[in-house]
């Protein structure tokens, strides 16, 4: 974990002092809303449908127990007792009062957290693989690189007033768990033929109105060239990116309109002048940051308790089989704690649940927690012998749902229930789908299936890359839901295909049920997942299940 030094603490304290004064001036009438709005957005404070919303950054999704306890404190003291973890590894508080926000930021500052650059046309919170430092398939822990980028981008003078926001993700796994190809820029840590570690740079990915899959801008960058290369890339886009139309302002459009080759040439030209300005201080800093992320002292211990609990307790066994991932250290597991209990709001945790998670991490998890873009919480380092105790503690907190990667492990944005931009609700659709498939007791039979729901075209719910994507729209004053199929959020990223006409709010859950029943009929066997079956068969047979009446009419 990165620990703030005196410089970081002083910087944050000064920012918070400034914001407190800005709030005071707004309340006193010395700042208009037009003047105040960009200032509050720079500090993560939105105004939504029912209240303000404070979006707190959880850089690359990594948290200590003390930080999680502070998130609980904020939920309890200044909100309604819960928080919402987002698809960008942030947490959002839906009910703060304007005048409480400076106190909330001061409380966060005490544990090295903030809400800076969680909004506005800046480089946003850097995200990373949520299994970073624990996954068996990674080359190295990607978090030092993510932290380096965070420090470089925070308050970067060239990148505070860009044409649009800019999102960066970092991963080092053989599998992509950070949706790299849906980011403005992604850093993939790779090894070249000579065995050297470096970076592959992807550019121009993004979802939203014009979904695009990221393209390789540079196949292999030496370590020391990373920041100057990223700076050159953002700089080129910041200069030539369109400012005439907000919907065409993201780098994906710039790369698309300019062409990848020409864009690359411009980056390289810019790089010639940017590179000499990096004296090597960034590499000294990187070495210092790396020391913060030293792996914990993994222990060697027998796993007898685990084996006997696994044999004796079928509920524990189901949870182990569904929610655990292979760890790189022998005897350890990566535990994914589901925030998707059937019928509950995806990504929400109460203050009590946050404290329980902090305590479990303290007792059994080397004090580390992660938030995934899939809106779950990860205990990255748990020794197998501790798993029965962890499971028992999770049960106490009602956090033991065994559904990771299954149909009820749904991503959903806040949608029209909270968000001022939304065109339809997303949360209740997720709640109803999860409840329905829990009633049917089918979800373990269905197997790996990702449903992702967005309540507007901006696609915070990643619907384009869901195996089943659901997009909520406003059609003539009524909620309407479009289904896309065959999306993929991994290294083989695909944008889902639109299945056909949308469904009304009360038709969407039955439509998903028909679709999934259709898949169960169509698949070659339980080992053929929904996505694999879809790739084999194409849209037509699934469409026949989604729109049976159209088929009947045609016949």
């Amino acid at each position: 974990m990165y620990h703030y030094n005196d410089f970081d603490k002083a910087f944050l304290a000064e920012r918070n002092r400034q914001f407190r004064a800005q709030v005071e001036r707004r309340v006193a009438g010395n700042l208009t809303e037009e003047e105040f709005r960009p200032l509050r957005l720079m500090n993560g404070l939105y105004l939504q449908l029912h209240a303000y919303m404070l979006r707190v950054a959880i850089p690359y999704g990594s948290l200590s127990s003390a930080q999680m306890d502070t998130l609980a404190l904020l939920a309890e003291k200044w909100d309604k007792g819960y928080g919402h973890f987002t698809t960008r590894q942030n947490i959002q508080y839906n009910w703060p009062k304007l005048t409480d926000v400076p106190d909330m930021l001061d409380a966060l500052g005490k544990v090295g957290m903030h809400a800076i650059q969680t909004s506005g046309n800046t480089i946003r919170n850097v995200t990373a693989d949520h299994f970073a430092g624990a996954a068996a398939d990674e080359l190295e822990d990607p978090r030092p690189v993510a932290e380096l980028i965070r420090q470089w981008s925070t308050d970067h003078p060239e990148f505070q007033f860009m044409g649009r926001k800019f999102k960066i993700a970092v991963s080092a796994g053989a599998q992509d768990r950070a949706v790299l190809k849906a980011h403005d820029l992604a850093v993939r840590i790779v090894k070249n033929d000579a065995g050297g570690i470096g970076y592959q740079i992807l550019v121009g990915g993004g979802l939203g109105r014009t979904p695009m899959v990221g393209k390789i801008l540079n196949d292999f960058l030496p370590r020391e060239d990373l920041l100057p290369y990223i700076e050159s890339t953002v700089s080129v886009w910041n200069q030539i990116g369109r400012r005439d139309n907000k919907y065409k302002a993201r780098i994906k459009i710039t790369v698309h309109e300019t062409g990848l080759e020409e864009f690359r040439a411009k980056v390289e030209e810019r790089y010639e002048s940017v590179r000499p300005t990096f004296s090597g201080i960034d590499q000294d800093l990187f070495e210092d940051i790396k020391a913060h992320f030293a792996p914990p002292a993994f222990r060697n211990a027998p796993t007898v308790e685990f084996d006997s609990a696994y044999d004796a307790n079928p509920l524990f066994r189901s949870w182990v089989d569904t929610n655990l991932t292979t760890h790189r250290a022998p005897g350890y597991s990566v535990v994914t704690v589901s925030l998707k209990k059937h019928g509950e709001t995806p990504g929400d945790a109460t203050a009590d649940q946050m404290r329980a998670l902090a305590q479990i991490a303290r007792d059994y998890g080397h004090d580390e927690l992660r938030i995934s873009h899939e809106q779950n919480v990860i205990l990255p380092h748990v020794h197998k012998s501790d798993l029965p105790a962890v499971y028992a503690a999770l049960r106490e907190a009602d956090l033991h749902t065994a559904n990771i990667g299954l149909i009820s492990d749904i991503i959903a944005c806040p949608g029209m229930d909270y968000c001022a931009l939304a065109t339809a609700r997303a949360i209740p659709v997720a709640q109803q789908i999860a409840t329905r498939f829990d009633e049917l007791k089918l979800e373990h039979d269905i197997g790996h299936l990702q449903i992702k729901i967005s309540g507007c075209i901006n696609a915070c719910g990643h619907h384009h890359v869901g195996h089943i994507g659901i997009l909520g729209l406003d059609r003539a004053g009524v909620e309407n839901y479009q289904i896309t199929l065959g999306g993929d959020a991994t290294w083989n990223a695909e944008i889902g295909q639109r299945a056909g006409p949308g469904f009304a709010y009360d038709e969407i859950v039955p439509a998903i049920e028909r679709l999934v029943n259709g898949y169960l009929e169509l698949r070659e066997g339980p080992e053929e997942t929904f996505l694999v079956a879809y790739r084999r068969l194409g849209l037509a047979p699934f469409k026949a299940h989604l729109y049976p009446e159209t088929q009947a009419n045609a016949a």
Partner: protein
Amino acid sequence: MPRAFTPKVITANALIEGDVIYFTKDDTWTRDLACAEYLTDEAHAQLRLLDAEQQVDLVVGAYLADTTEGENGLEPTHFREEFRRTGPSNYFHGKQADSKQQDGQAA
């Protein structure tokens, strides 16, 4: 042909609490849609919006929202305004809870 004017209320978010408020006949703000000024004349509605926007120390983002007079008084015509008037559907929070609390206090 310009579109026929449909009745409106003026709504905004309160500066400090951020919650949904409505403009009344006597230039104050209410948290209850039933107490809002019902605007049936377009020119008058635009003038009242100017009045509402003057109160920059109290409110953020005042605008005209379509409303009708139903059996139970003023009602939003669009579901977005219905959510603003009621609160989210996943928790009993927001106006639906606040109004119950107020009812409780009154009783």
